[in-house]
C-alpha cells in the first residue's frame, strides 16, 4: 500500500516497485538454511573443550606466548634482577683508593678508572696468562667457557 503522504507520481512509482519486487528464494534455499542452522545448533551444544574456537584461541595464545618468550630471550636477560648495589659501592671504594695512590686524577677520572678496571668482572672467553680465574657474573651463560693455557 502506498504511503498516503506521497504525491501521486511517487506513489505510482512505489506501487510499481511493490509489484512483484525482487526474486524469491530458490526452492532448495529453505532446506539449505535450516541444515546450516542444524549444524550450528549441534556445534553450540558441544562441550566447551570440543568447540573449535576454543582450540583456535588456545593456539593463538600459545603462539603469542612462544613469540614473547623467544623475543625476550634473544633481546637479552629480561628476567635479570636489578643490579647488585654492592658492585656500585665497591666501585666507589675503588675510586677512593685510586685517588689515594694517584692523587693527580680528578674524582670523576678516578671513578672512570675504577669502572675500566672492572672490565674483567664479566667473564668471557679471553686469552690469559695462566692466572687464577677472576670474578664471574651471576649468569651462567656469561661465565668463561674456554680456558686458554699460559703462553
Amino acid at each position, binding site marked *: 500500500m502506498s504511503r498516503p503522504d506521497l504525491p501521486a507520481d511517487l506513489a505510482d512509482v512505489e506501487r510499481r516497485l511493490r509489484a512483484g519486487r525482487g526474486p524469491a528464494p530458490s526452492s532448495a534455499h529453505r532446506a539449505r538454511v535450516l541444515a546450516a542452522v542444524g549444524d550450528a545448533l549441534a556445534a553450540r551444544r558441544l562441550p566447551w573443550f570440543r568447540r573449535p574456537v576454543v582450540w583456535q584461541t588456545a593456539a593463538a595464545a600459545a603462539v603469542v606466548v612462544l613469540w614473547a618468550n623467544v623475543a625476550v630471550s634473544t633481546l637479552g636477560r629480561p628476567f*635479570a634482577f636489578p643490579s647488585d648495589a654492592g*658492585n656500585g659501592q665497591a666501585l666507589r671504594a675503588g675510586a677512593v683508593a685510586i685517588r689515594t695512590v694517584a692523587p*693527580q686524577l680528578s674524582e670523576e677520572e678516578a671513578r672512570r678508572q675504577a669502572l*675500566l678496571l672492572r672490565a674483567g668482572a664479566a667473564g668471557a672467553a679471553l686469552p690469559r*696468562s695462566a*692466572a687464577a680465574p677472576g*670474578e664471574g657474573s651471576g649468569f651462567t651463560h656469561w661465565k668463561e667457557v674456554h680456558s686458554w693455557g699460559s703462553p
Partner: protein
Amino acid sequence: MGFAMMWIEALAGAVLWTALVLAVVTRIERRRLAVVLCVVGIGGLWLLSVLATIGMALLAKYIGWNLFAWDLSWLLAYSVGAVIMCVVGLRSADGDQPRAASWPRGGIAVAFAAVLVLYYMTFWNQDLAAQSRLAELRAEAAARALSVAPTRVPPDQNAAPLYRDVFTILSEGDDPPERWNTEWTRWLKWDEPIDLDASDPDLVAYVKGMEPAAALARAAAAKPDCYFDRDYGRPGIDMLLPELSRIGQMSRLLAVSARVKAAAGRPDAARADLEALFCITPHVEQEPILISALVAMVNDRYAVRTLEALLADGTVPLTAVTLAPTQFYNETLPRAFRMEEAFGLTIFSNIALGDPSTVAGIQAVATGCSGPERVLASPLFELTGCAAVYRVFILPPDLGFYVRAMHRYQQVTAMPYHEAQAEWERIEREFNRGAEMGMCSRLVFPALSGAVKHAATADARRALARLALAIERCRAGTGTYPESLDAVAPAYIPAVPRDPFDGQPLRMVRRDGHIVLYSVGADLKDDGGMPWDDKEDTGDLVFRLTIPGDAAPERDSAPAAP
C-alpha cells in the same frame, strides 16, 4: 643492509597501518567518531614520527647525525605515502562510498601483522649481529691488552717477589705516626723549603724499625726487571691497588730513610736508598696501566726531591750516580693508552650487553653526568629492550667515536710534547666540553690531558735531576760550579737535556746562593726560575743546588759520562 631493510619494512608497516585505519573509519556510520579515529590513528603516527625526528636532531650530538638522516628520510617517505593513501582511499569510487570502505580489513590487518613480524625478525638479526660483534670486540680488547702487557722474566731477575715481601712487612709493621700524614706531602713536595727534621726521634725510630723493609726494597730495586703476574685480559681493581698503595708507602720510606741516614752520617747508606728509589721508577712504570704510570711519576718525584735534599746536605757523594732519561710522555703514556683502550672496549661490550655488574659501576660513574648517557646506568636499560635498540642503532657510531678518539690520543703522544701542545688544547676543548661524543663514550672516555701534563712534568724533573748530577760532577772535577751550561756539556753530559715543554735546553740561573736549574713548566712561560705556584698555576719547575764556599774536588770526581 640491515638498516635499509628495516627502513623499508617500517615504511611498509606504516603505510599498511594507514590503509587499515582508513578501511576501518570509512565503514563507520558516525562521522565524528570516524574523523577522530582517523586523526588519532594516522595523525598520531605521523606526529610520533615528527617527534622522533626532532628528538634525534636534538640528540645528534650523542648518537650521531646518521640516525637523524635515516629518520628524516623515513618521515618524508611516510608523509608522501600517507597522503597518497588518504587521497586514494577517501576518494569516492562512484560518488558515494569512499574506496577505502571496500578494502579488506582482515587482509590488511594480516599484512600489517606480517610486516611487524618481519621487522622484528630483521631487528633481531641485527641485534644478534651486534652481539656477535661485541663478542669479537672483547677478544680484540684482550689481544690489545696482551700486546702491551709486560713479558715474564726469569725468577732470578724478577723483583716482584721481593717487593711482595716488602709489602708484607709494611702491612704488618707499625703505621707511621698520624701527624706525618699531612707532612709527607710537605717533605716530599716539589718546590717547598726542605724542612724535614731528619733527627726527629720518631722519624729515626720509624726508619730504624723499617730497615728490613728498606733493605728488601733495595734488593728488589737492584733486580734488572719486575714482573707482577696479572691477568691483563680480565683486569680487576683488586689486581692493582693493594700493591700500588704499598709502593707509595715504600717510596716514602726510602725517601725519608735516605735523609735520616744522611743526617746520621751514613752517606753510603743514604746513597743506596736514593739509588733504590730511582730504580723503582722503571719497575713500576713498565706496567701498562695509567694508575701505575702515575704512581711511577710520584715515586720519581720523591726520588728527585730526595736527590735535591741530599745534594744540599753535601755529605753524600753522588757524582757516581747515573740516571737515564725517562720517557713518561712518549712511551709510558702511549702504552697506558693502549691498555685504556682495551679496557674501554671491554666495558663498551659489557655495557651494550647489559652486564649487571657493569651497569652498577656505571651508576657510580654517571652520578656526575647530565646527558642522556645516564640512561645506560638505568637497570631498565636491559629490561625494557633499550639495550637492544642501543646495540642496533646507536652502538656503531658510539664505538666509532671512541676508537677514533683513542687513536687520536695515541697519535698525539707520538709527537714531542712541545709540538703537541696545540693539539692537546684542541682535544680538551672538543672532548671535555660537551662536544659531539657518543653516550657510552662519554662515560668511558678518559680525560687524560691532566695526566699528559704530569707525564711531561715528570720527564722534565728527571731531566733536571740528570743535569744537576752533571753539574755536581763538573764541580767535583773543576772545584767550582759552572757559570753556564756550556761548561757542562759535552764534558759531563752528552748534551744539555731538552725541556719537554718548549723543546729548548733546560735553563740555569744563579740566585740567592743557589744555582737554579729550571724548566718553563706547563704554563710555557719562562719565569726566570721562579718556583711553580699550584694556586696560580704558573711558575717554573726548579731544581736548586746550594752553592757552599769553594769546595775541594772529590777524589773520584772524574767527569764520568752518564
